[in-house]
Structures are given as structure tokens and as C-alpha cells.
């Protein structure tokens, strides 16, 4: 390998990488994760019915990713492997969102500082509380920085506006149907175009369920909740 022809300062290098990653992420659509009374709601603006952005990871943990599909899909699979291995070797209760979020943070952080091309992804891990433990929502950025969000978080294209709008409207966990309508309304306002129920991908970590609590709403179930005013 020949030596680098130019000197580039580390600050410049990091800044360029961050800009590159941000640009990639902002091109895509968004995902919102919101605590509702029935559990934790994960909703994505996703025209594809099969290429998911939201996924079950473990009994009480769910994953949402935005940005480059191939990259967050890889991360999603890695997370499932990590969780299943841990749950099998120890016990199912020992799999926590916090430890997974930390692992993701490490992974993204080292990828950002060591690789030429940073990962163009932003991911969210939701961990449904149990036995007095509160719900947890972690947002992990392309550079590995990790944020603990108490009530809701938004990632993806125009996530900041979306998050601000939602924070204005949601002060405490709403009922599921109301939460879903608020999220859909926010998606529509930000993108300034109607969002039919068929274009939404929605999952819920269900407080009333035992064992595997994640469930995915079918498009029909969804339009029944969203399109019928109540």
C-alpha cells in the first residue's frame, strides 16, 4: 500500500464520515417507537409489505432500523443471535434490552471509527418493562452514541421534526389506537402527503401477553384501528 498522498485531520475525517452517514439516513423514511398503555408501539412508514424495518428480537425486546436495509438487516440478525445465545446459555429473563443496546453501541462505534465507510443506520431497541421495571427505549446512532429515551423516539429521514411534533402531542402513554392515530398524523404532516394504512408497518410489545410478547399487525387489523374513528 502506498502512503496517503494528503494529510487529513482526524476532525475532518470524522466530520466527513458523519455527514456521509447522516445523508444516507436522511434519505430514507422514518420509524417511531412510542410507549402506549398496552405496551410499546413500533410504527414505520414502509411501503414494502415484506421488507421489514421492525422485528422481534426476544420475549420482551423489539428492534427497529432505518437507513440502508442491508446494513440494519445484518445488525438485526446479529442481535437475534446474541439474544438467543444468551437466553439459551443462561435464562430467558437474562436477556435485556440494555445489554443488547450496549453491544450495538460498541459495534457501531468501532465501525464508525475504524472503517472507511460508516454504517448508514440508526436503530432503536425497545424493552418492555416487567415486575416494576420500567419500559426502556434506546436509540443508537450511526456513530455508536446511545440515547435512553423515556417516552418516545423517532429515527430516519426528518426524525428531529417528527420527534419534536410527537413530543408536543404526547405527554404520557396514550391508548394504542390513539397513539397509532397520532403517529400516523405526524407522519402525514411531516411528509405532507397522505399515508394509507397499507403503507404502515406496525408492531407491538404487548403488556398483556406472556412469553413472546411481540406481535405484528396485519394490514387489515391496522386499517380497522386507524381508519375507523373512535
Amino acid at each position, binding site marked *: 500500500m502506498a502512503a496517503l498522498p494528503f494529510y487529513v485531520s482526524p476532525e475532518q475525517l470524522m466530520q466527513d464520515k458523519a455527514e456521509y452517514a447522516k445523508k444516507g439516513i436522511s434519505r430514507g423514511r422514518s420509524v417511531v417507537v412510542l410507549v402506549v398503555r398496552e405496551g410499546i408501539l413500533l410504527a414505520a412508514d414502509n411501503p414494502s409489505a415484506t421488507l421489514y424495518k421492525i422485528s422481534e428480537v426476544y420475549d420482551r425486546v423489539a428492534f427497529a432500523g432505518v437507513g440502508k436495509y442491508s446494513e440494519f438487516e*445484518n*445488525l438485526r*440478525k*446479529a442481535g437475534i*443471535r446474541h439474544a*438467543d445465545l444468551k437466553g*439459551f446459555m443462561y435464562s430467558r429473563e437474562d436477556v435485556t434490552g440494555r445489554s443488547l443496546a450496549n453491544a450495538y453501541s460498541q459495534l457501531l462505534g468501532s465501525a464508525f471509527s475504524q472503517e472507511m465507510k460508516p*454504517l448508514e443506520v440508526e436503530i432503536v431497541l425497545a424493552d418492555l418493562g416487567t415486575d416494576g421495571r420500567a419500559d426502556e427505549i434506546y436509540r443508537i446512532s450511526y456513530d455508536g452514541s446511545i440515547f435512553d429515551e423515556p417516552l418516545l423516539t423517532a429515527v430516519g429521514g426528518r426524525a428531529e421534526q417528527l420527534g419534536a411534533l410527537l413530543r408536543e402531542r404526547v405527554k404520557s402513554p396514550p391508548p394504542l389506537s390513539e397513539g397509532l392515530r397520532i403517529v400516523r398524523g405526524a407522519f402525514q404532516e411531516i411528509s405532507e402527503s397522505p399515508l394509507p394504512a397499507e403503507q404502515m408497518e406496525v408492531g407491538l410489545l404487548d403488556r398483556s401477553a406472556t412469553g413472546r410478547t411481540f406481535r405484528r399487525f396485519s394490514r387489515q387489523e391496522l386499517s380497522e384501528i386507524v381508519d375507523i374513528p373512535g
Partner: protein
Amino acid sequence: MKNHLPAAFAAPFESPSFLDCLKATGYFDQPSVSSVSPGLDRIPHATTVLAVRYAQGVVMAGDRQASEGYQVSSRAISKVIPVDRYSCVAIAGAAGPAIDMARLFRVEIEHYEKLEGVMLTTDGKANKLAQMVREALPMAMQGLVVVPLFAGYDLGRGAGRIYKYDPAGGRYEEEAYHANGSGGLFAKNALKMLWKEGFSRTQAIEAALRALYEAADEDLGTGGPDFVREIYPSVFTMDREGTIELPPTEVARYYRNLVDTLKRKE
């Protein structure tokens, strides 16, 4: 492109199998028993489990006793283990390795479903279990025989299905019913008398419970309904509604009635 992920997580076309993942990490090894050790018959063994098909699905039931030779080692183990929303596995044979296998099988099926975003077909699950039984063959040769019974609701066909296995990994589908374990023969004979095509869910549950009662009556290793400790056989049904466990109070009620009708003298 070189991946950022640890090697074990990396390749895009890697297998969706949890077992492969476990092997890659080096945590998984089959215990090898070097020679027939004299203590093997003193290891707890699970006894009678059975599955019965009905018109809309399949019921799976098992007694609760584990035996060490002529002794009771546990009165309340669970031999019917739900795998996912539409299937259960029931274990007979050496209890330790059998429960381990069922646990691993459950994670395997769940892992696939999560990675791929779709559930394995019933045939797919049954074949996977056959591979796992085959991998346990060296242990079976040493006396630690594990023979599972697998039953599930096939969403594609809209019917319940039952699979039995042999220790060498052979997989055979059963049309109507099957029973495994030390009391399996007696249970099977009872089911032979009771079973009819087009059974309702209730009829199938009753046949299964009656067959377990007969098995416990004839076989020392099989536990019957325990009215004193209130331990009753576990019963699961699988159909369009998913996997549902029958509440112990209902099982108890059935056995109370049965015992009353069986009494000869008042």
C-alpha cells in the same frame, strides 16, 4: 465488502439455524459417554406421552412423573413443551437430555422464525427435530435414549399432524394417534379402542386423558392423577386458535368423574 460484525455473525448466506450458531461459538458439544456406565438406569426417565388428532387440530398430553428405576424421582415434571404458537413436543426417555433437546428445539424454531420473518412449515419443524434426534444417536447407543413426539397444527392444510421418531433419527407421520414411553403401549391400546375419525376437541381430550389413566393403571413408571397433591397430567391442544393449555381444574374434573364411574361398589 468486509463486514464489521464478528465472524460468527457475518456471512450473508449463513444458515438460519440456531444450532449452527451455537456450534460456531463453541459452546455446544454433545456429551460423549465413553462406555456403558452402570448408573445410567438410575437417571430419571420420563414416561408416558401421547398425541391424538381431532377434526380441527391435535391434542398432546403427558403424565407428570419421572422415574428412576422403581422409584419416583419427580412427581411434577412437564413433558409436553410448547414449541411455538402451533406446535408442541413431548418427551420420553432419559429426562435430562430429553428436556435439553426440547429446549434447544424450541429456540431453534423460534430463531428461524425471527431471522426469516416467517414460521417454518410443520414438515420443516418435524425434519429439524429428526436431525436433532440423529445427532443424539451416540448417546442413545450408550443408553441415554431420547424419543420425542412432535405434534402441530398445519396452517397450510388446516389439520393437526403427529410425528413419531426412532432413536436413529427416523421420522414417521402418524395418521390418528401415537403414544411413547414406558406406558406408551397401554395408552396406545386404549386409544385404539377410543379413537374415531372426526373427533371433536373435547372428545379428543377425553380420549387422551382416559388413555393416560389406563397407562398409569398398568405401568409402574407412569403417574396417574394425584388428587392429594393436586398434580394432574398436562394437556395442550393445537388448532387454528393456537396452542392452548387445558387448565388443571378441568383435567381434575374429568378425572373425578371418571373415578366415580369406575367405582364398582358404593
